[in-house]
């Protein structure tokens, strides 16, 4: 069994006349947690959007389990959980409704664990209140609850810990470590100092771009 998941070859991307990254090559294997580092504006979010398949403004090749991303997009989306800048939560819907809608988009979600997941992110008792009554952090937690429901092996998380308190961060981090242990892969950006330290592979965009 190959443990290779995602292979990025010769990625080139420029934005507003500025080269963000060039000839960027790396691999993501099963059981790895990769943290993308870099200053503001170094292209962390752009990179994650490219990897998720949202942004197509790049040159180069991305392979998912040996197959070019252009040819296996549906399969790739099935194995991907993406957490973007916006949490993707409808303010007028309740956490339960929001997550149920996610399940209609990702049919392999464990919807039966919904209450458990919401309890894990500290939202038990808030299952049926509209999300606009919740705080920003709680809204992001609703979206993070997907991590407990999903079966996707690859997680791409853009600043998942923004507006989340310390205890929440520790719990999410533990979840990521467990996910990696079970053979999943995580690619994330964060400004938090992560406790799992040595288990993480770091990828510094500043060094790669030679701007630092």
């Amino acid at each position, binding site marked *: 069994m190959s443990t290779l998941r995602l292979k990025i070859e010769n990625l080139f991307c420029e934005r507003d006349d500025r080269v963000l990254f060039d000839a960027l090559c790396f691999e993501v294997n099963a059981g790895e947690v990769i943290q993308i580092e870099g200053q503001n504006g170094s292209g962390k979010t752009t990179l994650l959007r490219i990897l998720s398949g949202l*942004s197509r403004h790049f040159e180069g090749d991305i392979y998912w389990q040996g197959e070019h991303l252009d040819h296996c997009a549906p399969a790739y989306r099935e194995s991907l959980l993406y957490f973007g800048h916006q949490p993707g939560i409808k303010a*007028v819907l309740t956490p339960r*409704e929001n997550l149920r*809608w996610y*399940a209609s988009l990702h049919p392999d979600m464990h919807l039966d664990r919904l209450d458990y997941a919401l309890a894990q992110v500290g939202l038990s008792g808030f299952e049926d209140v509209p999300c606009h009554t919740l705080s920003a952090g709680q809204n992001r937690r609703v979206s993070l609850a997907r991590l407990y429901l999903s079966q996707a092996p690859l997680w791409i998380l853009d600043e998942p810990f923004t507006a989340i308190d310390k205890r929440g961060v520790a719990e999410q981090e533990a979840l990521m470590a467990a996910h990696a242990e079970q053979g999943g892969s995580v690619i994330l950006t964060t400004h938090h100092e992560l406790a799992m330290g040595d288990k993480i592979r770091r990828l510094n965009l500043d060094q790669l771009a030679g701007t630092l």
Partner: protein
Amino acid sequence: MSDSMPNRPAGDVMNTECRVDGPFWGALKRELLLSYRRKSDLVNPLIFFLMVATLFPLGVSPDPAFLADVAPGVVWVAALLATLLSMDSLFRSDFEDGTLEQILLSPQPLYLVVLAKVLAHWMLTGLPLTLLAPLLGVMLFLPSDGMWGLMLSLLLGTPTLSLVGAIGAALTVGLRKGGVLISLLVLPLYIPVLIFGSAAVQGAVTGLPLGGYLALLGAMLSFGLVMAPLAIGAALRISVSG
């Protein structure tokens, strides 16, 4: 992931709760629920529809004979503008809160999700407009023979308006000044629907057979149903990518 999660609710208790909707029904239900929670968005196009139709007697002439003459066109133009008015928000709120990204990253066929969204939009604007149209017909002295033609033509024509408008909405979703732009892009494309729609009403008033017009409107609708979601999906991927 392991199956040994604690606190796992017993399957039979939560059975109905756990049934996952397909992409089409999931999206449709969500849209309807969303607009149910924001009722004001629902009635605004209808009020607009009514107001535009009121402007004509005030602005041109309250003469019943004249109004009866222009009624088919006025009702159709008002319906067209009312549809356009609500079009801009179709994808915008999804774009702003990040749910559009999640839709695009779903393994489910985008075609179905988009179709569900457009269908929901039609159910919340086109359908009420159709039901409200006889009221406008009465206000504008449309002969009662024309009422059925009016309602049937709106019933077949407004879904096409929603489908075509959604293409414009998808193309402008990432832009701040999308509202005006969308009318500019979409209005020329609305012209055939307007022509055949108002002609159908006129035909009904004068007692001509309607079948031909309605068949043309139906043909445009079925063509739109097949092609428009593809264009909308492509436009959404492009807009979000930028």
